C-alpha cells in the first residue's frame, strides 16, 4: 500500500449487489429507512472503539461500499447488545445488519487479520458443529493461542483462580448423540434466498484485509 490513500470514494467503488444481499437477510429489510440521525452511534457502548460508527456503516452498506464496510473493525467490535436496535427511531434491525455483515466477512475471508472476535466466532462454530455444546475454557484457550499466544501467559493468574473455584473445565461437553444433532445442522440453504449454497464445514480461513 502506498503512502497516500484516496480519502474520497468513487462511484466505481460501489457494489450495489452487496447492499441487496444484506437487505435480503432477516431483520435487515428496513435499512433504507435510515435517516442518519446517529442514535445508534450515540447509544452504542463500544462506538468509541470503532473505526467507523454504526451510522456510517449503515450508510456505506446501503450504498454498496463493500470493502470499506468489511475491512473496518466496527462489525467485530460490536458486542451484539442490541442497544442500537431497540433505540432506532426507524426500527431498523441494526444489530441484525451487523450480524449479516459478519457472516459476509467470514464467508469471503475478508476481515482484519487475526481479529480475535472473528477467530472466536469461527472456533465457536467449529466446536459446536462437532459436539453440539460448547466448553468455554477450551474456546478461550484456542482463541488466545491463535490470536495472541503471549496473552495466555498474562492470563495465568486468572486461570489459576478459576481452577481453584472449580470453574475451569477441560473435558469437552458433548451431546449423547451428536450424529443425530448434526443431521439437523447440515446442508442448510442460505437465508437470502438468492445466493448459492455455501460449502459445508470447510470455511475459508480468512486473513488479509
Amino acid at each position, binding site marked *: 500500500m502506498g503512502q497516500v490513500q484516496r480519502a474520497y470514494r468513487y462511484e466505481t467503488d460501489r457494489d450495489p449487489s452487496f447492499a441487496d444481499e444484506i437487505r435480503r*437477510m*432477516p*431483520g435487515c429489510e428496513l435499512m433504507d429507512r435510515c435517516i442518519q440521525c446517529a442514535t445508534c452511534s450515540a447509544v452504542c*457502548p*463500544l462506538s468509541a*472503539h470503532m473505526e467507523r460508527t454504526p451510522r456510517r456503516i449503515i450508510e456505506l452498506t446501503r450504498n454498496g461500499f463493500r470493502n470499506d464496510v468489511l475491512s473496518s473493525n466496527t462489525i467485530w*467490535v460490536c*458486542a*451484539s*447488545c*442490541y*442497544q442500537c*436496535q*431497540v433505540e432506532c427511531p426507524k426500527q431498523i434491525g441494526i*444489530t441484525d445488519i451487523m*450480524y*449479516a455483515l*459478519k*457472516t459476509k466477512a*467470514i464467508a469471503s475471508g475478508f476481515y482484519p487479520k487475526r481479529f*480475535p*472476535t472473528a477467530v*472466536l*466466532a469461527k472456533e*465457536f*462454530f467449529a466446536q*459446536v*458443529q462437532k459436539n*453440539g*455444546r*460448547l*466448553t*468455554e475454557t477450551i474456546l*478461550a484457550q484456542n*482463541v488466545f493461542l491463535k490470536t495472541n499466544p503471549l496473552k495466555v501467559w498474562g492470563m495465568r*493468574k*486468572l486461570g489459576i483462580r*478459576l481452577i*481453584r*473455584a*472449580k*470453574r*475451569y*473445565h477441560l473435558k469437552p*461437553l458433548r*451431546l*449423547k448423540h451428536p450424529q*443425530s*444433532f448434526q*443431521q*439437523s*445442522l*447440515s*446442508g*442448510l*440453504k*442460505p*437465508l437470502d*434466498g438468492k445466493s448459492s449454497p*455455501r460449502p459445508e464445514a470447510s470455511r475459508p480461513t480468512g486473513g488479509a484485509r
Partner: protein
Amino acid sequence: MKFAYFPGCSAKTGGAAYEKSFLAVCDKLGIEMEELDEWNCCGATSYMSVDESYAYALSTRNLALAEKTGMDLVAPCGGCYGILLKSDHYYKRYPILKQVVADGLSHENLVYEGKAVVRHPLEVLAQMFGTKALRKEVKRPLKGLKVACYYGCRILRPIAPFEDMHHPQTMENLMKSVGARIAEYPLNAKCCGGAVAGVLPEAGLDLIWMILRDIERNEGDVIATSCPLCQFNLEAYQEEIIRKHPEIKPIPVLYFTQLIGLALGIEPRELGLDRLLLPVEPLLREKGILADAKVPAEAK
C-alpha cells in the same frame, strides 16, 4: 408448577453456581424443573456471525424439543434466553427462515410449530411464583444488604416480554421481597461487553469499569446478576480494572438466585458460593445475615 429446563453450556462449566442455586431455590419453592433431553448450544453471538441459517436452526432445534414436552421452557442464561426468544419470533416472521430451518430439523424428524414458550427465571420467580408468595418463604432476610441489580442485555433486548426494557424492576422486586435494600444506578442494563470483554480487553474492560464505578457511586454492597457471562465479566476482571483504577473497591458479584437462596435459608455450599472468585461470606457475616452458618473450607 413444572417447566422444561434449558441449562445452556455455561451452567455445565464456569457458571455451574447459577444452575446449582437456581435449582436449589426451585426445589425449596416446589417448582419442578425437568432438564430438556439432548438440548444443544444456543449459538450465542458467534453462530449468528458465521452463518445465520445454521444459527437459527441451532436454536430452533431446542424450541422443537421443548415443544414436544408440552411445558414452558426456562432458560436462565441471558444469552440463551435472548436467542431462543428471538429465534421463535423470527421463525414466525420470516417464511424463508422457517422453511430453511424446518428443512434442517426434518432430517432428525423434528418439527417446530411455533408453540414453545420461553421464560426466564426472573419471570418465573417474580411473576409466576410471585414476590408475595416468596416473601412468606424467607427464613434469613437479607437485612441491611444493599443490592445492585444488573440485567445486562439479552434479558431486555431485543425482545422483553415480561419486563420494561428501559426501566427493569423484576430483579429489584425479588430482592426487596427477600428483605434486601436496592442500590439504584443508571447503568443496570448497559452491556458488560459480552465475549468482547475477554478478547478485546482494551474496549471491553472500559465498559465493566463504568458499570462498577456507577454501582460504587450508588453504594451497592453486592451485585446481583442474571447471566453467567455478565457474572464472569463483572467479577473476573475486577482485579485488572482496579489495578488501572484504584478508586474502585472490590465488590462481590453473585447470581440473583444465590441471594434468594440465602434468604430462603439454603446453605451457602448448596448455592455454589464456594465458586465465587470474590468471597461474599465476610460481608454477609458483617451484616449479620450469615451469623451462624459455617463457611465452606475452599471458599478462600
